[in-house]
């Protein structure tokens, strides 16, 4: 009786089995990497904005303090977006005729808000409080990156829950003295933290990793 299969068939079959296994593992690995990739989280991806605002000019070159525009960052959950009036307080003098500023002027005259696209929007079940972080020594830079070098505002971190937890589990290394919160490119070293804050957070991880700290 003749052979049903050639020797090659055996090899092929075995290879197929091995490949199947490898394929499964590979798929898992890919998924793992993809889920953490910056592109997945739109890190560094600018969004279309009504006005080509440049943080690198305002914050970087002109050294305007973050709080001049994001005025409620130290007392409210929302950092606050500058009102058209705030913009106009300078731009009624400089760049008066610039067409790129038309939306701002329109907003100001008609009392209609200006609609920016958020690049840092969290899902609606996650609640973030700017003041609570800023007043405890979490710097703008820590989450928003070197805004002072951004021609177009982009996300600097994934802002994934895991990323939040990394800090919430042990905040102290990431914290800064209050006066350094708004500086960019500051070298964080826990050494110059006020002791009360260090104390406050030494035992804080349990509270900071409680679900209701961010989810309600």
């Amino acid at each position: 009786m003749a052979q049903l299969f050639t020797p090659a068939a055996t090899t092929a079959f075995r290879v197929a089995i091995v490949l199947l296994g490898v394929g499964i593992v590979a798929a898992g690995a890919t998924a793992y990497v993809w889920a953490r990739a910056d592109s997945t989280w739109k890190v560094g991806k600018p969004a279309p904005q009504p006005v080509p605002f440049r943080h690198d000019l305002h914050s970087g070159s002109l050294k305007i303090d973050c709080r001049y525009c994001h005025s409620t960052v130290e007392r409210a959950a929302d950092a606050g977006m500058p009102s058209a009036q705030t913009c106009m307080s300078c731009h009624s003098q400089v760049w008066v005729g610039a067409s790129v500023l038309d939306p701002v002027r329109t907003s100001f005259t008609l009392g209609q808000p200006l609609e920016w696209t958020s690049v840092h929007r969290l899902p609606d079940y996650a609640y973030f409080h700017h003041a609570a972080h800023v007043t405890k020594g979490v710097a703008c830079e820590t989450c928003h990156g070197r805004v002072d070098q951004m021609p177009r505002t982009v996300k600097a971190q994934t802002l994934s829950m895991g990323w939040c937890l990394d800090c919430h589990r042990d905040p102290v290394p990431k914290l800064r003295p209050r006066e350094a919160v708004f500086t960019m490119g500051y070298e964080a070293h826990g050494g110059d933290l006020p002791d009360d804050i260090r104390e406050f957070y030494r035992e804080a991880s349990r509270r900071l990793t409680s679900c209701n700290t961010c989810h309600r």
Partner: protein
Amino acid sequence: MTQRLYGIMAEFRTPRALTEAVRAAQRSGFTKIDAFSPFPLTDLARELGVRTTVIPWIALVAALIGAALQYGSQYWMNVVDYPLNVGGRPLNSWPAFIPSTLIVAILWAGAATLLGLLLILRLPRLHHPVFAVPDFARVSEDRFFLCILSSDPLFDPDSSRRFLETLSPEAVREVPACG
């Protein structure tokens, strides 16, 4: 008759005949022999010197690994990595961690045993010289075969064939090596 051989195969009607043949072959000093049957012949296997004790060892080791991994991961996840107060229970609620540990141990043992089996038997092997033997198909139903492999030091196509024919088989056939 110039083609290389895998061995020479004798066909028998009954398991007893096969057993006799095997014993005879062993008496006459053949070492590289293989027997084929439509159902397990445990005694014959023992005579052929098969020791299957490795199987339970595979199972045991796999079970231990599985259990360790499962309990370890439970411990690491619920106690070390993200300790949460769940219903005021202790972080390391070992009694509650036991059941899935046990189950996963079984999962590993079972899977390892059966996959290990295939590895030991070098299966799958779709092509094998013996399949070329006419009538060998009946090994899966009602025929018993003894094969003296060409790799046996005492193997010689003619003498071996003659030897087999002395065992009053149904038939003796050459098994061409695959090439």
